[in-house]
């Protein structure tokens, strides 16, 4: 099987995640779509690691996972803080700078 099939699916998942970030309003769903994009990038890293025959891609995917974990922790804390003050998890409601 051609390894670039994995690259295609990675591109597809990344695109779906990007659409989700733009279209959905619930901050938590938006956040999950960002996670989907990171995961898609990881799949591309692992596939390139296999295509090139060295483990650097896998180490890079490992670092991406750590950064994603940090991002989830801080991001969810921000969502909870916004929810506490505005009673809403909608990204449309957080428009203080606009008014």
């Amino acid at each position, binding site marked *: 099987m051609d390894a670039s099939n994995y690259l295609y699916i990675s591109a597809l998942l990344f695109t779906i995640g990007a659409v989700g970030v733009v279209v959905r309003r619930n901050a938590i769903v938006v956040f999950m779509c960002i996670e989907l994009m990171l995961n898609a990038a990881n799949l591309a890293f692992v596939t390139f690691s296999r295509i090139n025959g060295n483990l650097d891609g896998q180490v890079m995917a490992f670092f991406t996972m750590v950064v994603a974990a*940090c991002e989830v922790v801080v991001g969810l804390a921000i969502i909870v803080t916004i*929810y506490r003050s505005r009673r809403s998890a909608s990204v449309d409601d957080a428009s203080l700078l606009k008014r």
Partner: protein
Amino acid sequence: MQLALEVGQTAKPEAVMFWILGPMAVIAALGMLLVKKAVHSAILMAFVMVVLAIFYIAQDAVFLGIVQVVVYTGAVMMLFLFILMLVGVDSSDSLTETIAGLRPIAITAAAGFGGLMVALLGRATLGRDAIGLSAANADGNVEGIAVALFSRYVFPFEVVSALLISAAMGAMVLAHTQRTKARPTQRQLSIDRFRGTSLASAAGLPGPGVYARHNAVDVPALLPDGTPAPTSVNASLEARGDMLDYKSFDLSEVNTQIEEEK
């Protein structure tokens, strides 16, 4: 030669696995965008992550596959569900478009972007066969990653550990709330209740469904004058739309004639 033979032998089962799980992952990811409830999105996301873990293991990235299951589907998705339960359901779950014309623009842009990515990635291998990781994984996948991580990548590894600590600190700072006023005493709470604006809730709110037709939590209680009390039903049930219509329980609407059962 040995490598090529090995790749050839594993090609068939891997292709079967890929063509079953790949479309399922894409459908689940699309479902994430289309389902209304955030909890369903989270479940579909967990499914996509498990499929990706299987893909990692199929591509000789055993360590990453296990880490994917433990860290992502285990820790990260659990954190997501935890926050979902904490924040609860609200109007942001709805799929209505708030910015006019956003959806067609997003889909057009995504189609263009996805086409570009697929066209680019199709050329990424330059027509060569994959080298495979049999040589790199000769001492084992975990050992190979460990050698890379603690020799060439030791500085990024340390930086990432600093990042993790900062993230933990940041989350604690964000989650910590400082009390700006003194905590009200029991005496103060009691005074507020009886000397406050309304005596209606002085004795506490009625429980749901106590005098109603059904003894259920989604049925509002009837007050002594026969009017239903919507405040007796839990607010989260009301937000979810699970409360029965309280007007139908008004005594002037209900037929109080007792029918004899035969």
